[in-house]
């Protein structure tokens, strides 16, 4: 029954313990609404037929509602509304009270991406890995404007506010991949601010975590793109990827086009980069190499000067491999010119 309703109402498959609670109250409200709506429609229809005007100057009896009927008109709907309100509030309190043993994750919204992190582990952009069957407490904040962390399959939503943390929690019921959307309008690319929750079986999650405690996570979508790039550029590029992973480049750079702490590597090679000091530079091999050794020399506009120098930490072979890897990251199609997007920047005091 409830599976049928879920399909009829276009609800996504329930993927968290909250989802079935939210859906149950939803079904209760919808069914009552339709029963009463049908009653109203039918009554109106019968009245239309039965009391159709037959004669132009007809007079009608003067009828005043008896007080008891007015009372009934008030109390029956009110009883239903308050019942729904109470049932819903019970679940709402539940949804806003994380269990004590929950696993913590941090979520940060930023125009226009979601970043995730564990207290003890590296961050990820665009993908959040969590275990199934275990409560996860989500602490949410924003770096610029208000966003809203929304996982339809979990029936879960919570705003991300600059300057403060909000919290919520969920327990995913089965492994799978579930879209994360931004539900609070946040600018030009609001509709592109998407991410993914990857729910793993508990063992798989532990294995993933052990692996990623030491290794920074690659950016989203890296794996398939890399396969394509490497096929075209050969093993040296693959070696470059390994170097980049080892040196922690992916903590700041992505390979799927999203800007992160640093510029994305996707399509970087031979791109015209605007400089913070004004002017432009072509990202050729010389520039790429210089940026690894002396990152502050030519800073790309819009990014903080946070990249450390890798002088002395990268061998010549490493650099060659990295450059080859970056060259392999061609965009499939030309990058459209950047929109004139409005940006939230705290004003200088």
């Amino acid at each position, binding site marked *: 029954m409830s599976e049928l309703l879920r399909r009829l109402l276009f609800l996504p498959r329930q993927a968290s313990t909250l989802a079935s609670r939210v859906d149950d109250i939803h079904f209760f409200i919808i069914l009552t609404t339709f029963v009463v709506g049908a009653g109203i429609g039918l009554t*109106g229809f019968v009245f239309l037929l039965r*009391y159709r005007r037959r004669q132009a100057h007809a*007079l009608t009896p003067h009828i*005043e509602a008896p007080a008891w009927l007015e009372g009934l008109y008030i109390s029956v709907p009110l009883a239903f509304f308050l019942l729904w*309100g109470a049932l819903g*509030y019970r*679940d709402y309190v539940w949804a806003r009270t994380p269990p004590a043993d929950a696993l913590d994750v941090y979520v940060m919204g930023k125009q226009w991406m979601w970043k995730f992190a564990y207290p003890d582990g590296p961050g990820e952009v665009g993908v959040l890995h969590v275990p199934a069957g275990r409560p996860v407490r989500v602490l949410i904040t924003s770096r610029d404007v208000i966003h809203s962390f929304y996982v339809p399959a979990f029936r879960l939503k919570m705003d991300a506010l600059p300057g403060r943390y909000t919290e919520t929690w969920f327990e995913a019921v089965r492994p799978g991949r579930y879209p994360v959307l931004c539900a609070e309008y946040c600018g030009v690319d609001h*509709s592109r601010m998407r991410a993914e929750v990857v729910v793993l079986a508990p063992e798989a999650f532990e294995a993933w975590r052990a692996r990623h405690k030491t290794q920074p996570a690659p950016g989203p979508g890296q794996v398939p793109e890399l396969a394509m790039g490497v096929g075209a550029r050969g093993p040296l590029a693959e070696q470059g990827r390994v170097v980049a992973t080892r040196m922690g480049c992916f903590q700041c750079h992505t390979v799927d086009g999203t800007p992160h702490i640093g510029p994305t590597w996707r399509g970087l090679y031979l791109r015209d980069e605007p400089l913070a000091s004004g002017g432009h530079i072509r990202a050729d091999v010389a520039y790429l190499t210089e940026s690894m050794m002396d990152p502050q020399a030519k800073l790309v506009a819009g990014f903080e000067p946070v990249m450390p120098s890798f002088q002395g930490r990268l061998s010549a072979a490493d650099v060659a491999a990295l450059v080859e890897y970056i060259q392999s990251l061609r965009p499939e199609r030309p990058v459209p010119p950047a929109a*004139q997007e409005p940006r939230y920047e705290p004003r200088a005091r």
Partner: protein
Amino acid sequence: MSLARAEPTMPEEHYLNSERGLWSWLTTQDHKRVGVMFLVAVLLMFLLGGCYALALRLELLTPEETVMGRLAYNRAFTVHGVVMVWLFLIPSIPTAFGNFLLPLMIGARDVAFPRLNLASFYLYVLGAALTLWAMLQGGVDTGWTFYTPYSTATGTDVMPVLLGVFVVGFSTIITGLNFITTVHTMRAPGVGWMRLPLFVWAIYGTSIIQVLATPVLGMVLVLVALERVAGVGLFDPARGGDPLLYQHLFWFYSHPAVYIMILPGMGVISEAVSVFSRKNPFSYRVLVWSTVGIAFVGFLTWGHHMFVSGQSTFGAGAFSVLSMLVAIFTALKIFTWLSTMYRGSIWVCTPFVYVLGFIFLLFFGGMSGVAVAVTSADLHWHDTYFVVAHFHFIMVGASLMAFLGALHYWFPKMFGRRYPEGLGVGTAVLIIFGFIATFLPQFLLGNQGMPRRYADYPEHFQPLHVASTAGASLLGFGFLIVAIYLGWALLHGAAAGRNPWESRGFEWYSASPPPESNFHEPPAFPHGPHDYARPGIEPEVGHAL
């Protein structure tokens, strides 16, 4: 001389022809002419907002870019929202029909402050011009809600729009004050409070909300402007401000404002149900007190827009309960209208089709309101298309139906002419059908998880979007037909006669169109405005059934 086919004729002199020339209109102090000017202005705004609506729906036909880019889309939904909410829905029924009818309905010669009334119109035009000018200067991409910190940070030019809305707010306040004073001081002898037409009650309740709530809007717009220009840091957390403060202030105005949009419509329906059923309202006092109740409790529910904003858990519960209380008043009205038809003599003509549409759509719009006021359910629905569907059901499905119903019901009164009845009924059915086709899929989209204000979207949402866009084109087509036949009727329609609907409402005691001073002699109303149990004044000719 064939008396049997006596065509009712237009009165020789009326407010439309008593003075001629554009200047006589622009300087008029006749509430009827001000009402007509407002009617023209809000219809233009509706046309503008409607064009944007169709453009938005077209863009959403495909998941990727269809006709405009993302920035253009964001600006378009902002224009659409600002124009529809502030320049069309809020002023529509009160300024157009309220101005025209309120004095007629209480037997007065004019409103209390005729000059102020004209000033209100010019303020509205000024505010609208400012807003639209800003929109044409490249546009604003904040949405009609101007949420901070986005609105204080965006590179688009928000200031002129804030100023425009601010000025329109003054127009609203002035009109409200004018109506309140008029109702208090200018009722004809015998028109006691409990004998006021229900439309007057509705406009009175609306005016109270307007006067109490709009200043808060003005204040919050000033604060946003200060934040943008001077960086005072009220909403900016980097300076110790609170990003949620804005939402509280904004919804403290804007929740009552949604009732500014619907209460006048409910007044129209209360009138029309009674007229076209030829029955007294099932419970006059319920219709009056629920109006007062909505005006009051409407101020206490703003927090239900913020269930996932990080407000306290307890606060959410409190706002949820208060929202349930305000819903009751609407439920009461629906049951009362329905019961009014009981043992009546029902005439299904164009305005009444809109009445039926209104009641049905208000029911679903209101129930979906209750649904989103259920805190846990709102976790899923907040800021999705479910909410979009909810408020369009109420604002388009109900307020707009009431507006169209009012237009058709009072058209003979205002212009002394009749429109083709068959075409009217057919188009009303088409519009209601088109409406349902447009917005029903949006409830399902919301369920599926489609957030609002998305220029593009994941592919699996597409089928429902296509359905919605198809419905929207039907709806637009319906409006076009209405515009055509009403325009035709304005010039060539048959003369309506004084009271073509055989209404007992006080406004029909004067000629149609009314003379400049409303009544040739001081009016005496022998019975109540909704009394169909005793013979009353009859029109010159009976209508065809």
